[in-house]
């Protein structure tokens, strides 16, 4: 399937126009949408992720690749929905109430989508009730929370507590991150995991979903 190799290469190069065109071409040839996704888009992002992990490329390169993947996904999404192709899982993310920083959270969302997750990004300044309600209504596997201020970190604990109160702990797993957050804080509030950066967050979420 040389055209899917080309598609993966377009993702790796961060060539969004080419990625969109090659995805359209593959669809036009009536290739299986799940195959286009796995062997084209995700295959390309996997190479990008591997190169990023060994510092061969840097975050801006990953983000250029992500834009290319989005261009492909824009073409493919309606077909994946039509065919009922499941994602790796739904992840609700947001910067917690009181926190308006969202670059780190955005990076996590971009990388999770690149890995094949269905991401529901609630934005910033998100109330605990909104996170819990969305997780319940959407059947999310994971809630990811970001905070960049010590004053807003406690909100993460409120989300964990509300999930517990609604009987969702264990069904909806939680991961926390952000500059002032660490492993010890995650344990202290009862979160399931801590992600130290966007790349690590993807690995952590994969592990959380895998052990459900």
């Amino acid at each position, binding site marked *: 399937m040389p055209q899917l190799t080309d598609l993966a290469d377009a993702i790796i190069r961060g060539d969004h126009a080419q990625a969109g065109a090659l995805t359209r071409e593959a669809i036009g040839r009536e290739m299986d949408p799940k195959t286009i996704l796995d062997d084209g888009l995700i295959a390309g992002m996997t190479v990008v992720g591997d190169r990023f992990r060994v510092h061969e490329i840097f975050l*801006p390169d990953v983000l250029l690749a992500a*834009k290319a993947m989005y261009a492909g996904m824009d073409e493919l999404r309606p077909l994946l929905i039509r065919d009922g192709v499941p994602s790796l899982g739904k992840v609700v993310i947001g910067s917690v109430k*009181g926190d308006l920083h969202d670059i780190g959270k955005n990076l996590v969302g971009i990388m999770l989508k690149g890995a094949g997750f269905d991401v529901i990004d609630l934005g910033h300044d998100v109330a605990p009730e909104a996170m819990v309600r969305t997780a319940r209504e959407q059947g999310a596997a994971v809630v990811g929370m970001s905070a960049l201020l*010590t004053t807003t970190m406690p909100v993460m604990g409120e989300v964990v507590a509300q999930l517990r109160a609604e009987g969702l702990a264990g069904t909806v797993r939680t991961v926390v991150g952000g500059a002032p957050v660490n492993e010890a804080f995650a344990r202290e509030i009862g979160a399931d995991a801590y992600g130290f950066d966007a790349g690590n967050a993807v690995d952590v979420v994969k592990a959380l979903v895998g052990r459900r």
Partner: protein
Amino acid sequence: MSDVFTVAPEGVSPDRDAVLSQLGIPAGTGLSDRIEGLYAQAIGVLAETMAPAGVIAEIPGGDFDAVYRGEGKNAPATPVALIAPRAERVALFAVTLGEPLSRAVAECFAGADFALGYTLDALASVAADAVACLAERRYAQSLRDLGWSTPDGAVLRYSPGYCGWDITGQRRLFAALRPEPIGLTLTDSCLMQPLKSVSGVLIAGPRAIHRFPPTYDFCARCAERTCRDRLAALFGGAVQ
């Protein structure tokens, strides 16, 4: 003394190595053409959208003590608690790059221009710091203009959220400084808006008062260690 000022965008030069470091790119790394292009594009957007402004207001040392104590949440021992009493002059300050820049970053992400948005955000963080440096120099110059002539005198800045000064200290700082004329406000969670802003205290005195070892409890958890860079710049060499 109270001083509200603006800075022409061309007067703000974000340090390239600092920006690359923010982007996770080690110093000395050769950049690909596409990343160089991205960097140049982000510089252009930064120049178009930032509107640097600042405010500096002197405060008596005793009044600063009350501002610094804030809501009583500072670390038990902090460098500023030792440095401020030895200061000759103290001023509160705040600088901002303005709201349009924050909107530009958000629009990049909304439009899937992630790499540009991320690069612009990193540039803006370093640019905000550069404007804070300008505020330091501006205050030092204004003191010299008024006859401040301490041998080996220097001005250095310290900010809530760093070096044991709890972020809730922003509330009293903002109440005393009133930076609204430059469009800067504080949220309930002590977050400055626009986001790309810096606030704190400018402490003027003999250079030596600023030297402190990175051995406080909070130093062990600090990943930034920018205090070392700033002291190195002040003392003209590496400072341990």
